[in-house]
């Protein structure tokens, strides 16, 4: 029987179609690893049985031999912080991937600690591709975003989507302009490229959390399946998830345990379906694979070199074991850079018990994240915000309420030190950029230097740092308008520094607080001057008058948060001689200083004595000082100062003196340095010598210039 040409063509076409449909349906097995962290052991002996990564390699080879690993993909954080990997700058891990046939590895946050330069260098000439979308140098894509694998006539692409935890080294940022571009825009470009390449299925390796991955897949049906791992370890609400299926049937599989490797069986047809997904714990398997032998030999050479260079004893700390931790690092950084606040991310230092000889390899082992340390200044309000943010970091030097034993002052600057990544997080918390100084010393550097020297890192606590003396200088310069209405007895002299008659004047009121303090002691020296140009109503003339020159020296013993013993020496005089007199009044008091958040009060006993023009016998009495400052709205504040001294002169209980001054002020701040204030001052003196009173009431409006300096 002869077939006609048309029938033959139909049969051939049908046969081709059947063949094509068979070819398009296939299984794809994927072997997955994540968070290997360069965890090579440092021992050469028995490494085939003890080195976790070699054991994993034996399992990978076994799975590959049994046909269960068409693709070998790593979800990232493979290079860091293992000591040997750190030492080899990732070369050992890259060789590992190359020898054992890893097709691709997703770049995750800790991988970048190797350096983008080095990662780029390492993948040259090797089969393994480092995948990351969105990482760019001056706008150019740095890493391959995807690889394409051909399976059963289908082209399957693997796309790497890194997490938002990616942080670039400051040097890479400054020099290369390294940046993380928005992944979504990049993904659209990638989609177009994949379509052009004829890719039908896309596997997304995602370092994002499962919620973010779901959001990413929504509206992107071209992503067939997502695999989460690396920076994300499966946390979902209060538990851990292994697999999440979307409503449209697509799946997200999640790698939870970093000690396991995972086998994913996919059915690749019209879509991509998960047939099975399981984690396995690697166990030693004897192998004679030549690739394994070659890599094992190279690894031995790395270990030998590491031991030769890094196994030297830096310091002998004696037999008593010391547990390392983040707090030690924070204290060390504060000590090294003379900072009041030390910020360290949790897990920066792995807790390890060390004793006797501490080796360089111990330091490499314990440092989990190695960034350059930045020093920067935070004001009190920002510091409180950082302390209250409850982020995954440790704050040394402050409990959020006080620094060095004194309450945090919102406007005061505090010096802080933090690794670069945490500094960037602090900027996010306070929502503005901070100026900083890069010390160009990373954590390993300062640990090595410290262990060769003071060993501050191993100290029990860092309270010794609070014993350091620091100094502040605060200037309060006021230009004021003063109108006074004086009423007094005819026979009474005006008290030193107080006006004798009704006047109107312009003047300056200047005060400088020079404070030297540490955790326990506080010394405050306050020169104060009131200088005015006076116009009296009686004679309608202008007088250039020195009003008051006061020096105060206060010592506070900072024993407790709310009650502190103090001693105060105060000397009042005039700048210019008035009526050929230079009266000098001294006051010596000692007592307790009660401090609260808004109000502080001093209650003390002592004496006042006029030591010049004229000399008088001392008057013993009690001092009461109340200071309050209540900020309200945003720029306003109310201030109250009450200063009173009630005394008895000599042994005569009838000769009582009362000296009181109450200042009420309302200020409006223009900025950090300038404020306008309206102040009411009321002075009262009662003398039993004359059985008469002196009262002075002033209303002052002033422009206050306030600035402060801190000597750290």
């Amino acid at each position, binding site marked *: 029987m002869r077939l006609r040409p048309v029938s033959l063509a139909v049969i051939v076409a049908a046969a081709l179609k059947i063949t094509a449909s068979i070819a398009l349906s296939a299984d794809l097995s994927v072997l997955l690893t994540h968070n290997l962290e360069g965890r090579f052991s440092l021992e050469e002996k028995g490494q085939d049985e003890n080195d976790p990564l070699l054991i994993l390699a034996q399992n990978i080879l076994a799975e590959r031999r049994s046909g269960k690993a068409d693709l070998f993909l790593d979800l990232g954080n493979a290079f860091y912080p293992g000591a040997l990997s750190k*030492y*080899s700058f990732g070369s050992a891990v890259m060789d590992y991937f190359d020898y054992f046939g890893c097709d691709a590895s997703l770049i995750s946050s800790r991988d970048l600690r190797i350096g983008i*330069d080095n990662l780029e*260098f390492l993948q040259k000439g090797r089969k393994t591709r480092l995948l990351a979308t969105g990482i760019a140098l001056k706008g150019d894509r740095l890493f391959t975003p995807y690889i394409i694998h051909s399976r059963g006539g289908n082209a399957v692409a693997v796309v790497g989507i890194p997490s938002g935890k990616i942080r670039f080294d400051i040097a890479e940022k400054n020099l290369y302009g390294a940046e993380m571009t928005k992944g979504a825009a990049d993904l659209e470009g990638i989609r177009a490229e994949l379509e052009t390449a004829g890719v039908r299925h896309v596997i997304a390796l995602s370092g994002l959390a499962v919620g973010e991955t779901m959001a990413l897949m929504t509206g992107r049906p071209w992503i067939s399946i997502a695999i989460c791992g690396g920076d994300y370890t499966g946390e979902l609400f209060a538990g851990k998830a292994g697999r999440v299926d979307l409503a449209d049937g697509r799946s997200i599989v999640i790698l939870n345990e970093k000690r396991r490797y995972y086998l994913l069986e996919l059915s690749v047809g019209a879509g991509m379906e998960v047939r099975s997904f399981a984690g396995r714990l690697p166990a030693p398997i004897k192998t004679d694979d030549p690739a394994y032998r070659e890599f094992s*030999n*190279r690894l031995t050479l790395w270990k030998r070199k590491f031991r030769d260079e890094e196994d030297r004893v830096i310091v002998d700390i004696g037999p008593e074991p010391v547990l390392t931790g983040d707090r030690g690092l924070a204290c060390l950084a504060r000590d090294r850079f003379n900072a009041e606040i030390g910020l360290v991310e949790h897990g920066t230092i792995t807790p390890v018990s060390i004793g006797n000889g501490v080796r360089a390899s111990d330091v490499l082992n314990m440092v989990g994240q190695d960034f350059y340390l930045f020093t920067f200044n935070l004001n009190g309000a920002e510091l409180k915000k950082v302390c209250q943010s409850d982020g995954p970091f440790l704050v040394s030097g402050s409990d959020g309420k006080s620094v060095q034993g004194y309450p945090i002052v919102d406007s005061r600057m505090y010096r802080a030190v933090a690794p670069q990544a945490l500094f960037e997080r602090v900027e996010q918390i306070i929502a503005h950029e901070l100026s900083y100084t*890069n010390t*160009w010393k990373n954590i390993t550097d300062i640990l090595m230097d410290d262990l060769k020297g003071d060993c501050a890192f191993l100290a029990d606590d860092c309270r010794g740092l609070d014993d350091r003396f620091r100094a502040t200088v605060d200037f309060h310069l006021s230009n004021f308008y003063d109108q006074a209405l004086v009423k007094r007895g005819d026979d009474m002299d005006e008290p030193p520094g107080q006006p004798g008659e009704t006047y109107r004047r312009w003047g300056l009121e200047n005060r400088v607080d020079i404070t030297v303090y540490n955790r326990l002691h506080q010394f405050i020296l306050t020169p104060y001057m009131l200088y005015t140009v006076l116009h009296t109503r009686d004679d309608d003339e202008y007088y250039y008058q020195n009003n008051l020159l006061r020096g105060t020296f206060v010592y506070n013993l900072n024993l407790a948060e709310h009650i502190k013993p103090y001693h105060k020496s105060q000397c009042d005089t005039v700048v210019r001689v008035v009526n050929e007199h230079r009266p000098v009044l001294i006051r010596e008091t000692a007592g307790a200083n009660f401090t609260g958040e808004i109000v502080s009060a001093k209650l003390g006993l002592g004496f006042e004595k006029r030591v010049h023009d004229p000399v008088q016998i001392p008057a013993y009495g009690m001092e009461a000082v109340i200071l309050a400052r209540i900020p309200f709205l945003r720029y306003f504040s109310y201030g109250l100062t009450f200063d009173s001294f009630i005394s008895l002169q000599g042994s005569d209980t009838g000769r009582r003196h009362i000296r009181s001054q109450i200042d009420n002020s309302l200020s409006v701040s223009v900025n950090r340095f300038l404020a306008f204030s309206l102040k009411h001052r009321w002075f009262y003196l009662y003398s039993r010598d004359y059985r008469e009173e002196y009262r002075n009431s002033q209303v002052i409006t002033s422009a206050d210039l306030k600035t402060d300096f801190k000597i750290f």
Partner: protein
Amino acid sequence: MEQLRAENSLVKKRLMLAERENAVLKDENLQLKSERKQLLARIEKLEADIASLDDRYKKDIALRDGQYRDLQLKNDVLSRESSEKIRELSELNRSTESRLGAEIVRLNDELRRLQESYTKEREEVRNENARRELALSRELESIKKTAAERESEAASLKVELASMERRCENLAKTIEDGERKLKDRETETQRLRERIDALMNQAAGKPSCQ
């Protein structure tokens, strides 16, 4: 300045990676070179060994061939000699078998004759023993009777002896009582004497009433 420091930092990292990787690869290269040398030397040695073994095997094969031929000849001679010997031994076997048959017949006859004479002798000994047994049993009966008579006599003597013993005991008791009474009387006598002595002494010591 910051730019320079940044560059310095990155170059330092890159340099350290390059230096360390280079050092490891150099070590690996040296290791591979030394392994290669060792393997080359081993190959040379093995080749020499193969050549010498070749020679030795050739010589050995020639030697073995000669030995084989000699053994072949020896085998022929020995097989001829063994056939002759087998025939002789077969002859000898046959004559020995006939000689031993005649001897067996003779020995069987002799055995039968000795067995018959032995049976007869045994019968005679048995009869003699029966006769002697009868005589001895009779004698034993008479002796047993005599012994019974003696035994009854001994029993009557024993009874008599017991009564005699009882009488002796009674007599001994009587004697003992007599001795005791005698002793008491002696004591009494002694006491009386002492009293008499005392009275006499008393009498002697008293002055006369006159």
